[in-house]
């Protein structure tokens, strides 16, 4: 089968997909119709072929009989009448053919028919002195054999024409079956895959946008939290300063004990900060 690369050059859009689907449908219908036509013609063709074969063999015999009747003429006349016969030809043939058309699955086949004009006889006088009867007889025999030949000619012409038409039709059938249909199918699957790809890209893009948004939000949150913490610290420090000042002012003797107490308070504040950061990171990841 034709490779995946064999497709029509189209833009993979939904509209083209519709067009292509229509085309595939058409091609399939056309294929089955042509196939049927080709079968009908082939049937006829085989029939004709057989008849040609028979007719050609029959012609061999008929012509032999005819040639023999001519031998009888030359026996009776004791000479060759060829020259006399040739010279008595008039300007209108007695034996002509008519052609008729016959329609076989849309193909016009000519049918020849003998068209004998009985009023014309160029050889009435030939052999008047002797052999006239034999000449007339030979005339009849030859007329008969020419009729056979005319039939054969019809068959043969039909054969030639049918042969041509069948070849063309078969070529079309094959072209549709092996080129057009696969190509259209390829095109359709190409369009489909392209459209799917587009869909996935779009989805990924949306996700990515969402993620970016979330990261931005988290960062903003963390900043905000840090700011708050700092403010608290500052406030505490301020508070402590005031307390120390107060204590220094009030109690100078109790200095060591008060220093230990402040250390414990700072540690507790530090622990609170780490927990907050951990929590934010987990949220972003999952």
């Amino acid at each position, binding site marked *: 089968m034709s490779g995946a690369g064999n497709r029509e050059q189209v833009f993979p859009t939904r509209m083209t997909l519709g067009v292509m689907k229509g085309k595939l449908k058409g091609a399939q219908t056309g294929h089955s119709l042509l196939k049927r036509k080709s079968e009908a013609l082939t049937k006829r063709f085989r029939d004709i*072929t057989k008849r*040609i*074969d028979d007719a*050609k*063999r029959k*012609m*061999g015999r008929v*012509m*032999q009989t*005819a*040639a023999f*009747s*001519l*031998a009888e003429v030359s026996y009776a006349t004791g000479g*060759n*009448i*060829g020259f006399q*016969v*040739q010279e008595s*030809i*008039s*300007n*209108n*043939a*007695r*034996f*002509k*053919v*008519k*052609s008729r*058309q016959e329609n076989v699955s849309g193909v*016009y086949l*000519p049918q*020849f028919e003998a*068209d*004998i*004009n009985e009023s*014309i*006889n*160029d*050889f009435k006088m030939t052999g008047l002195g002797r052999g006239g009867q034999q*000449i007339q007889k*030979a*005339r009849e025999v*030859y*007329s008969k*054999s*020419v009729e056979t*030949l*005319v039939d*054969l*000619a*019809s068959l*043969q*012409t039909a*054969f*030639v*024409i049918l*042969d*041509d038409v069948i070849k063309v039709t078969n070529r079309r059938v094959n072209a549709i079956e092996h080129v057009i249909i696969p190509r259209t199918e390829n095109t359709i699957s190409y369009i489909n895959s392209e459209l799917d790809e587009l869909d996935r890209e779009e989805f990924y893009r949306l996700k990515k946008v969402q993620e970016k948004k979330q990261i931005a939000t988290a960062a903003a949150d963390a900043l905000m939290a840090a700011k708050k913490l700092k403010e608290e610290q500052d406030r505490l420090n301020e508070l402590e300063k005031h307390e120390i000042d107060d204590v220094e002012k009030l109690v100078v003797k109790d200095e060591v004990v008060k220093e230990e107490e402040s250390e414990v308070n700072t540690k507790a504040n530090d622990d609170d900060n780490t927990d907050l950061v951990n929590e934010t990171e987990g949220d972003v990841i999952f």
Partner: protein
Amino acid sequence: MASEAKNRTLIACMGDEDTITGMLLAGIGQVTNEPGKEKNFQICNDDTKSDELLAKFDEFTSRDDIAILLINQHLADVIRLEVDSFTAPFPAILEIPSKDHPYDPEKDSILRRVRRLFGDS
């Protein structure tokens, strides 16, 4: 094609003297004064050269009033290539036996086409 076949009413013949005489007796002959269409039959004997045969063959096949061309098989053999390569539907070319040369179906160009198509010999 239809009109093409309509005007073709004549039978032309190329052959030896006996064949021609017989065909003329049957009444196929037509002699006119029209240039190029004087006679629709031609006597060919053993002395007739192959290029004369060819010229006649071409003349008859190119005339537009001939429906059937009869040719003796032994003459067709001389110009076999041309006969074989003539594939137009008109005029129909029939190879006929002559008195001295009986019919041999194996040589007939149409029958050979038949055999080629169906692959039997």
